[in-house]
């Protein structure tokens, strides 16, 4: 390992009799040290990120190197000798593969292959040019007598040094560029180059190394030919190994359906075996892993489950990130070891100067040629960033350490120079590249999630271009990509993908699916405290929310998928009273939180997911989506929903003793600031006064939208006859509409992270007075407990209770179920609450202290009824807001792979 054992501690003395405990440091020493170092590095990362200011200016890699220097100094001071160096073997066998795999696997493949020409040019021609130019120039410097005579090196030595110092390092580039956020094209070119130049570096390094070992006198012309041949062998061979293992990996994951738990392991295992296999036959291991990652991803992702995908992603990122951390830290520590150093100012300065100069010259010359063939030329600014972004890193350091001191006399000088070059590029260039990019106004990447339109139309563009190339008879890039995609679809995907995965695979569908999931998740995330319907409606596109709503509404209306969803409930219910109850139960069951129920505790090493959970997640997802759509409808068709609420209210009033709702009605005319009042013509011209409170935070939405999006407080006056005229099914339907629209229509009032009722037929079966109560409880809880974190439940309870406190006079024995059911209506019609059935009130209890606090708050009611009503709620919401934003995220990782 990287850690050389410290001076052997004195072994245990001859045992005198039986021992209770024994000091076994020797046995655990190596793994313990490894763990300790990883821990130190990880803790350091935490510390760095405590201050956002520091990390936004100084790249993490710089900080880690500096930390390494400090730690190395401490070790040196304590142990009196340098220990814990970055060992080349450790580096190449354990630290590098995760980083390369990560970058290959998550490489944006389309972008990569779109720019493959430029990437290959820079990687091959650029690296060759840099190596030879740097090596020769340094040799020239040496011949000119500018260097210390102690530097015993010939042309071959300098070329060898040039080959290892000239390669741009993937680890360093990634570490720095990830924080800079230049545009994708620029990033992929620099990063792709750093990955693919490995083949060139490896070949040059090996060839020159053997030349140095042979000695200049023994090199024959055939050796040069061999060198060129080995380049093709190493690069193409490495790629082939990668492709082979990618194929194997994809094939294996096709059959892992029953062993989901070890699915992720195959990805790591095969990629690692690919690396080792390539390394074994001295092919380019980096190329092997890179291409293995790039090529297998599509099939692997389609085959493995969503959970495995998440596991792969996170494990890969964790491994890569910790490898990177350790590499940079050990670079710092290794630099302290002065025994390896031999300083020569001319060599160091010369190398620094030449690598910068030749990199710039190389980039400019190659870009000049490349731009003739590129659709979008790389401009001057791009070239500056590319030249400046040529960072050197740990690969160079590991290679220089690997040199044989016997053969390469000037090794110590080279080591010192390499360390300086690596430190200079990582620290100085890493620090300055961000300001430089800002100063040059380099086009940054705009990270936005793909929208369906973009995906769809870009697909169309691809087809169009392929068709035009066909028509023109030019077999260009699009032609070949089209060919490849057809081949892939016909044969490869068939072979490498599960039947089920293959059937459902479509990029447009994927994007649609992801968008839906994202919306559902953000909906749950926002849960209790969404204030505007706009946010709720389309969290994915905050800027476009306002415009999109009406369309959805129309669509819903046209396709008839709106309110009629719940009509089935009504059909089977007989009397009107029953119908009301049915509707309420229906709604209740959907929106109530049942006490958290545990799953039967079970442990299995081989399976994690009981089917229940998956089903639940799916159900939740479905319901959220359904609710979202309902939301659209109800928000946009304000009139419609208000109508229904009015009617609802009507109904409530008719049969109940008018109580505190009177207050609302009377205050109705006050119209505080920020509230708009309007009359909406109701059916049969019954006047309904609808008060819409608009407390919009978002200033950009227009007035009308604002009204639509707002929490609505309805106060309606209509005659009883009108209501009588209504057919009861419709009433129930409307009831449901109200309930469904509750989260939107009155988000301020009722921030319910709740679930809308499941499909009506299902609900029907389980209506409490039909099925037994216990059954129902189980059903609902299995739906709700998973997604709604406890905090949110609390917030919800609090808001409900605060509502309750307003709606009903303290101390009144009131049935909670009506409140819960229709929070928007609640405050206006607490009368209905008085009709509680004991059966239901027993199933849900508010925490008494919470409701009490809510009550006391609302007792002091100064001005404006709405204001009053909202305040306690807002306050409680604030409390509940913080934790849920973090917690519900895990939902994402649980998503079942298909709808």
């Amino acid at each position, binding site marked *: 390992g990287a850690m050389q054992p410290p001076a052997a501690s004195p072994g245990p003395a001859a045992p005198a009799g039986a021992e209770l405990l024994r000091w076994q440091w020797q046995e655990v020493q190596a793994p313990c040290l490894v763990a300790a170092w990883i821990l130190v590095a990880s803790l350091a990362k935490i510390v760095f990120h405590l201050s956002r200011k520091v990390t936004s200016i100084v790249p993490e890699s710089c900080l880690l190197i500096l930390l390494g220097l400090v730690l190395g100094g401490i070790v040196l001071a304590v142990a009196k000798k340098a220990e814990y160096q970055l060992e080349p073997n450790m580096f190449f066998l354990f630290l590098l593969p995760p980083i390369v795999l990560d970058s290959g696997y998550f490489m944006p493949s389309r972008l990569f292959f779109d720019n493959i020409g430029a990437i290959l040019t820079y990687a091959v021609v650029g690296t060759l040019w840099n190596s030879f130019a740097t090596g020769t120039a340094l040799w020239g410097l040496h011949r000119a007598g500018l260097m210390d005579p102690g530097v015993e090196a010939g042309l071959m030595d300098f070329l060898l040094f040039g080959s290892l110092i000239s390669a741009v390092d993937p680890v360093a580039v990634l570490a720095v560029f990830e924080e800079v956020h230049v545009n994708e094209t620029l990033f992929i070119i620099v990063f792709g180059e750093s990955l693919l130049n490995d083949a060139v570096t490896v070949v040059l390094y090996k060839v020159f190394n053997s030349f140095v070992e042979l000695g200049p006198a023994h090199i024959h012309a055939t050796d040069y030919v061999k060198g060129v041949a080995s380049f093709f062998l190493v690069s193409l061979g490495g790629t082939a190994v990668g492709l082979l293992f990618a194929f194997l990996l994809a094939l294996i994951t096709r059959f892992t359906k029953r062993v989901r738990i070890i699915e992720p392991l195959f990805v790591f295992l095969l990629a690692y075996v690919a690396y080792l296999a390539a390394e074994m036959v001295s092919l380019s291991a980096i190329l092997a892993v890179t291409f293995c990652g790039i090529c297998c991803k599509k099939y692997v992702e389609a085959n493995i489950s969503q959970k495995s995908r998440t596991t792969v992603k996170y494990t890969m990122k964790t491994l890569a990130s910790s490898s990177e951390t350790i590499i940079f830290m050990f670079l710092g520590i290794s630099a302290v070891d002065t025994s390896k150093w031999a300083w020569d100012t001319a060599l160091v300065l010369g190398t620094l100067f030449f690598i910068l100069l030749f990199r710039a010259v190389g980039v400019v010359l190659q870009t000049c040629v490349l731009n003739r063939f590129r659709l979008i030329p790389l401009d001057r600014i791009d070239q500056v960033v590319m030249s400046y972004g040529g960072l050197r890193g740990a690969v160079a350091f590991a290679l220089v350490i690997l040199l044989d001191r016997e053969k390469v006399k000037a090794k110590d000088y080279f080591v010192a120079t390499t360390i300086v070059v690596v430190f200079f590029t990582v620290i100085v260039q890493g620090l300055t590249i961000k300001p430089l990019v800002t100063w040059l106004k380099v086009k940054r990447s705009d990270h936005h999630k793909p929208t369906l*339109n973009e995906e769809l139309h870009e697909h169309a563009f691809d087809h169009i271009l392929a068709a035009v190339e*066909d*028509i023109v008879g030019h077999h260009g890039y699009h032609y070949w990509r089209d060919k490849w995609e057809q081949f892939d679809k016909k044969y490869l995907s068939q072979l490498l993908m599960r039947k089920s995965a293959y059937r459902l695979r*479509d990029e447009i*569908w994927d994007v*649609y699916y992801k*968008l839906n999931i994202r919306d559902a998740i953000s909906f749950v995330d926002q849960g209790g405290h969404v204030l505007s319907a706009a946010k709720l409606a389309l969290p994915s596109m905050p800027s476009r929310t306002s415009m999109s709503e009406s369309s959805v509404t129309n669509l819903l209306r046209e396709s008839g998928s709106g309110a009629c969803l719940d009509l089935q409930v009504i059909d089977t219910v007989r009397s009107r009273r029953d119908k009301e109850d049915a509707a309420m139960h229906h709604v209740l069951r959907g929106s109530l939180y049942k006490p958290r129920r545990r799953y039967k505790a079970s442990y299995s090493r081989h399976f994690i997911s009981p089917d229940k959970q998956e089903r639940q997640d799916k159900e939740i997802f479905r319901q959220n989506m359904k609710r979202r759509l309902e939301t659209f409808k109800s928000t946009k068709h304000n009139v419609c929903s208000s109508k229904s609420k009015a009617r609802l209210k009507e109904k409530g009033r008719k049969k109940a003793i008018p109580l505190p709702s009177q207050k609302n009605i009377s205050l109705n005319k006050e119209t505080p600031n920020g509230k708009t009042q309007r009359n909406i013509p109701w059916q049969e011209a019954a006047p309904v006064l609808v008060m819409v409170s608009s407390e919009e935070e978002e200033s950009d939405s227009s007035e009308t939208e604002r009204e639509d999006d707002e929490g609505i407080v309805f106060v309606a006056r209509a005659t009883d006859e009108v209501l009588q005229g209504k057919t009861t099914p419709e009433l129930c339907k409307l009831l449901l509409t109200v309930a469904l629209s509750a989260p939107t229509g009155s988000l301020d009032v009722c921030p319910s992270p709740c679930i809308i009722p499941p499909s009506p037929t299902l609900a029907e079966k389980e209506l409490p007075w039909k099925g037994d109560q216990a059954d129902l409880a189980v059903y609902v809880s299995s739906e709700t407990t998973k997604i709604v974190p406890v905090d949110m439940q609390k917030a919800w309870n609090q808001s409900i209770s605060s509502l309750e406190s307003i709606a009903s006079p303290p101390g009144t024995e009131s049935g909670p179920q009506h409140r819960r059911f229709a929070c928007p209506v609640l405050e206006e019609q607490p009368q209905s609450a008085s009709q509680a059935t004991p059966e239901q009130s027993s199933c849900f209890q508010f925490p008494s202290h919470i409701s009490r606090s809510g009550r006391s708050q609302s007792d002091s009611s100064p001005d404006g009824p709405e204001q009053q009503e909202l305040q306690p709620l807002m306050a409680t919401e604030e409390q509940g807001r913080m934790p849920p934003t973090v917690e519900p995220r895990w939902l994402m990782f649980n998503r079942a792979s298909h709808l």
Partner: protein
Amino acid sequence: SVSHSQITRLYSRFTSLDKGENGTLSREDFQRIPELAINPLGDRIINAFFPEGEDQVNFRGFMRTLAHFRPIEDNEKSRDQNGPEPLNSRSNKLHFAFRLYDLDKDDKISRDELLQVLRMMVGVNISDEQLGSIADRTIQEADQDGDSAISFAEFVKVLEKVDVEQKMSIRFLH
């Protein structure tokens, strides 16, 4: 701004496609291109070559359509705004794509029109219901004026972040 050799090359392609040797191409001539037959949007793209109500296209018309896919050059970006907009402008490129969707030429992509294209591009594996929800969502994303259809302005807006200049250009037509 198309080079002479380019025109010669395209003309020879034109004549080789022109099996009737009458200086115009018919739909059949296009359909004979094997790769085009498997292109999901092949028919739509062929139609784009033919002016309204005609079923023959001459070399000039052929070139006019292809001109949409010429890359935008640096010197063109800064050209004066007085002249007519070149065929390869961003807006014209987008309009070309837009017309592929808009079958009834009412300057709107309706849900039905979108569904048709989706069905062509997505293949048979996805149910009509799912396609329908994709179409709904797509329109919902793009629609600004609430007419449940995507107008050209909305089409442009929704693709404003897409590098259309690059994605609708072919280097060959330089």
